[in-house]
Each structure stands twice: as C-alpha cells, then as structure tokens.
C-alpha cells in the first residue's frame, strides 16, 4: 500500500475522541507485520510492541479526531451538538456529516446555513456559534433513531493533491502513519531497541491517553509526534521535513542534540520549532509520567489544522519515519539485516 493510500485510509476511518476502534483496525492491519504484539489498555490506547534490546522507547501519536456529539434532537429531527476536541464553528457550515448512532447504523445529516437573503443584515457579519448551528438529520426516514450521544464527523473523503494528502483527521493520524512507517523501517534491522508505538486516545481533551500509557510503560525515552502549523513567518513549511522542537522545559536537551546530530550527519532535511512551556501535545504528560521520562517532540507541518481539509505532504511523512528509525538504531548501534 502506498503511503498516500495509508494516509487516506487513516484519515477516512471513523474515530471521534473516545471511540477510536475503527482507526485501531486500520493501524493493526498496517503495523501488524512489523511488530511482535498489539493490545489496547484500560483507557483506550492501542499499543504495538516491537521487542528488542537496549533502550526502551515510547512513540506517542494520537488517533482521536476532532468531531461532534449530538446533545439534543428535536421532534422534527434537527439535532444540536457539542464538540469533541476544539472545532471552529466556521468550518462546519454547509458540511455533510456522518452520524453513527447507538443502534450501530450510520445516517447522514447536513449542517446547514440560511441563505443570505433570508437573513437579517446585522447577522451576516457573524458566524453562528455552536448554540446556533444544527444538524439537519430530518432527511432520514428513521430520524427518531438518532439521539443524544450519537457521534458525528464531517463526511469528506481524503484525496491526493500534488504530492500532498488532504483529509479530515490527518491531525494526528498522519503521525500515526509515521509510526507505522518507522516500524516498517526498523523491521529491516536484526537488532533494534524495544519500541512501544502508542496510538493514544483523548489527546484532544488533555493528552489523557498518553498520561496513562506513559505511567504504565517503563521507557528510557519518550518521543511524541504531532502536527504543527505550516507557518512561513515562523520558518515551518510543508515539504521541508519534520520540525524538531528545540526546547524548552518540555524537551530533553541531550536527546535533542543526539537527534539533531543524527539528522545533520545523515543530511536529512529538518526544520525547527520551539515551545517555552508545555507543548500542548502528548509530550506534556509523557515527560512528567512516573519518575520522569526524557521526552522529545517531532512535529509534522500541516495546513488548516482542525478543519475537514487538513493538508500534509507525503514526503514529510516518509522523511520523518526514516529519520526516526535511523535515530533509534543509532542509539543502539545495531546492524542492518
């Protein structure tokens, strides 16, 4: 399967925060051949273990996507909703959504907006908030089966676009793809460190999954990977490789130097990012888990984060996997198979 195809499949999978089973299936199938075991833990993380020797490394990427949950349905089948993770109401207007109900069935809905000429002039300058938006689910003949607690995602299929992939859940499944590719790269070596690929839940609501996973695993190094904003002003762009977070308090200085040196020695294109406190990713909770874990954060440049048309560059995904796999091997001093 091509990397672009993997990104598309991962993005299309249905995985609202707390309900990532379908994504787990896609990941299990993709990473299965390259790891020794996979299991899910109490809080809902998927963990794939590649047994090795020497250092024990945890790689954290989250697979929950920002999405919606229905909070009320009226007698005509119009539903009110709440966000799961941070969603900008602007990008929900005029979207088709897929609703998965507690009866297991999938139904459609439209988040509609009134045509301009029926609106009052004063409202045109404002975007409806969550309190004014609604999902028109009345179009379903059995709309009374839709209820509070049903989950909804924007119904948009990912697609390729000039070496990039656009989709609804590349944050952070594009990085999950990096983990999968890293596992594939490592499988070419006869000895590697032990690597726990943790596909976390609930990152979007406070890195809850990563907290539990990091407390449970005994690791010498934690590497979190998340997407970061493509931002020319701040020298982070699509197509120029992963952004390594230089510092500050959340990042382990010595491991960062090793990673940076490895990139330079192997002429791998990287960019740099910085954070003055918490990073706002799984790295936050990994570093302070247990008695403390040296932590690194690698970021994949992405455009339009938290919209249904997030964009990443495929070569960045591939490049990051190569970097990571090579870096892990360098920690071990292993031999290629």
């Amino acid at each position, binding site marked *: 399967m091509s990397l672009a195809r993997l990104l598309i499949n991962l993005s299309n999978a249905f995985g609202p*925060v*707390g*309900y990532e089973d379908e994504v787990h299936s896609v990941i299990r199938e993709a990473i299965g051949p390259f790891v020794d075991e996979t299991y899910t*833990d*109490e*809080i*809902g*993380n998927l963990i794939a273990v590649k047994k090795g020797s020497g250092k024990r490394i945890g790689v954290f990427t989250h697979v929950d996507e920002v999405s919606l*949950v*229905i*909070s*009320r*349905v009226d007698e005509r089948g119009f539903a*009110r*909703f*709440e966000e*799961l993770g941070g969603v900008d109401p602007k990008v929900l207007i005029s979207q088709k959504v897929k609703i998965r109900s*507690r009866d297991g069935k999938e139904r459609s809905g439209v988040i509609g907006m009134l045509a301009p000429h029926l609106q009052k002039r004063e409202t045109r300058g404002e975007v409806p908030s*969550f*309190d004014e938006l609604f999902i028109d689910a009345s179009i379903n003949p059995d709309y009374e089966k839709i*209820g*509070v*607690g049903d989950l909804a995602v924007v119904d948009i299929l990912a697609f390729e676009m000039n070496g990039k992939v656009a989709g609804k859940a590349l944050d952070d499944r594009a990085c999950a793809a990096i983990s999968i590719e890293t596992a594939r790269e490592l499988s070419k070596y006869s000895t590697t460190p032990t690597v726990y690929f943790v596909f976390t839940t*609930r990152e979007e*609501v406070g890195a*809850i*999954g990563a*907290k*539990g*996973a990091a*407390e*449970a695993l005994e690791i010498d190094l934690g590497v979190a990977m998340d997407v970061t904003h493509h931002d020319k002003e701040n020298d982070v762009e699509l197509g120029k490789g992963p952004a390594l977070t230089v510092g500050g308090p959340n990042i382990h200085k010595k491991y960062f130097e090793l990673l940076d040196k490895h990139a330079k020695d192997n002429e791998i294109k990287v960019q740099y990012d910085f954070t003055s406190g918490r990073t706002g990713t799984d790295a936050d909770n990994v570093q302070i888990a247990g008695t403390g874990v040296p932590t690194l954060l690698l970021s994949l440049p992405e455009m339009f984060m938290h919209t249904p048309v997030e964009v990443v560059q495929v070569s960045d995904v591939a490049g990051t996997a190569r970097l990571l796999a090579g870096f892990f091997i360098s920690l071990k001093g292993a031999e290629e198979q």
Partner: protein
Amino acid sequence: MKKLIEKLVTISSPSGREDAIREAIAEEIKPYVDSMKIDPLGNLVALKKGKSGKKLLFDGHMDEIGVVVTHIDSNGFLRIDSIGGLSPYMLLGSRLIFETGASGVVDLEGETIKELGESIKNLDFDHIFVDIGAIDKSDAERKAPIGTFGTYDSEFIDLGKRLISKSMDDRIACAIMIQVLKELKDPKDDVYFVFAVQEEVGLVGASVAAFDIMPDMAVAVDVTTGPDTPKSLKRMGFKLGEGPTIKIKDRGSISSSRVVSRLKEIAEKKEIPTQYEVLIFGGTDARGYQTTGRGIASGTVSVPCRYVHSPHEMVDYDDVLNAVRLLKALAEEGVE
C-alpha cells in the same frame, strides 16, 4: 430513603471541611461493609467483597460548595471568598451557616445608587459582605474568626415526587451509594465505595483515591443540571424525571465507551429508564479516575437536578430510586 437524604443534605460540610459528613456516612455504612478506611486526604473508602477477582468503584463526593471568612472589619462585618463554584448572586437574599454555628446574611456595597447598580451587574466577592449580627469586631471574631468555613443554610423540602435542598450536589449521590450498600447482597466483583473529598475545588480526592485500588471500572455518581426549565439551554436534551443519565461527555472527560455500553446494557436488561447526557460545561470525579496511574475506564451516572449550586437544588425521587437500582444491578452483574 428520604430520611437518609435529608440527614445528609442538611449537614454543612464544604470542601476541605468534610469531617461532619464523613462521620455521618461512616455511621450509616458501618454495618454493611467488609472494611472501611480513611485515606491521607480524607476520602472515605469502603469495600464490599465479591467473588470474581475484578474491581468496581463507585464515587460520590462528600463536599459541597461554600465560603470562607477572609477578613473582619472594625464593625464586625465579614468578607468572604468562595470555596468551589459558588456564585455571589446566589447569596443575595439567602443565608449562610458557618462551622462555628454563626448565621449570616449577605448584602452588597454601593455608596451611590449608580454604584449599587454597577455592583449588581458585575457582582463579585469583593463587593459583598456578611452580617452575622455581631456588635463589633471582637464579637465577630468570637463568632466566626478568619478562616471559618461556611455553606448555604437552607432546609430540605419533600414535595413528594420532587425534593429540594442545598447540596443535592453531591449528597444525593452519597445517599444513593449508601442505599446501594444497604441493599447489595451479592456483588459479583469487589465493589469500592469512595466518598471523596474536595471535588468542588478540583476533583482532588478522586485524583488519588483509586491509586492503590486500580479498579477495572470506575463510575462517578453526580448531579447534572436539567435543561428542562423555561427557555433553558437549548443545546442539551435530558430531563428531570426521565431517569438517571449515562454521561457521554462533559468538559472534564469523555466517558469510556465500555462504561457507557455496560451501563446501557444493564439498564435495558433490568428495564431501568435512563437517558444519555451530553453536558456542554462542567466535569465530575470521572476525570480523576481516568488520569489515575495507568488509567481507569471511567464514566459518570448523573441524577438530573435543577438549580445546581443554588441553595435550593431539586431532584426527582424516582430518578434517585432508579439510580440506586442501576448501580446495584451493575454491582450484581459485574463489570464484564
């Protein structure tokens, strides 16, 4: 069960000052538990043993919102600050009771009519004061010195189907848990009943209560605000009287899907009416359990309640009884 509820809600025990309520609960549950302990933070943890080897945990918080005396002026008027999310607006026209026994009434500052208007629009604790009827500063210092905690002072009213009192949040859960303990003969798993402290100031007790237990499932029992009063929040859809809720999400946590489906399964099997709940604000102790150690599958069962965090919270007695049935059934059927 109404007598039990009345006993619990009328006790004045704000966050951090839970001795009185803990004693009352301990006394109630003693004959029914296999063991009981108080942990370093003050959580009361009781155990009823089962056979399966698995562990289930129920959590209800003992503390209620309140106030603390921060200053006494030369005339014996008190200044206070909030303990937990107590809104100053709720104090205007209602009474406070302090742990020393003093009673207080609250009013606001305003040296001009205009200022009074401003104070009302943007009411905060800096612009209100408490009058405990002291004649001077030293009198006040005797009656309610700085650092004295207090709560709403209101009575329990039984309207038949509906019950009104302060601190239904979360004494109703404590009552439910006690009732479950009394009725539970044959639990499948080991069932831990955690009466937690300091939920209202940041889920403190629940963050650690399960550290040594690490149950297979944790269910927080709390109240949720019922959006079924005139022109109430239009985005939410659950009602008083239609059963205890199975929470899907609030701002504190997204309930573990396993807990949600297990509760629904049991509710359907036992024909207990329940509703799903999506709350667009707020949080419960469930978050504390999700973030304990390597993580615990957790969720919340809520009792719909109107006027939460006011001196007169209202619950539906049938919802309460159904919550007891639901939790008891879960304890009997097990987490599996």
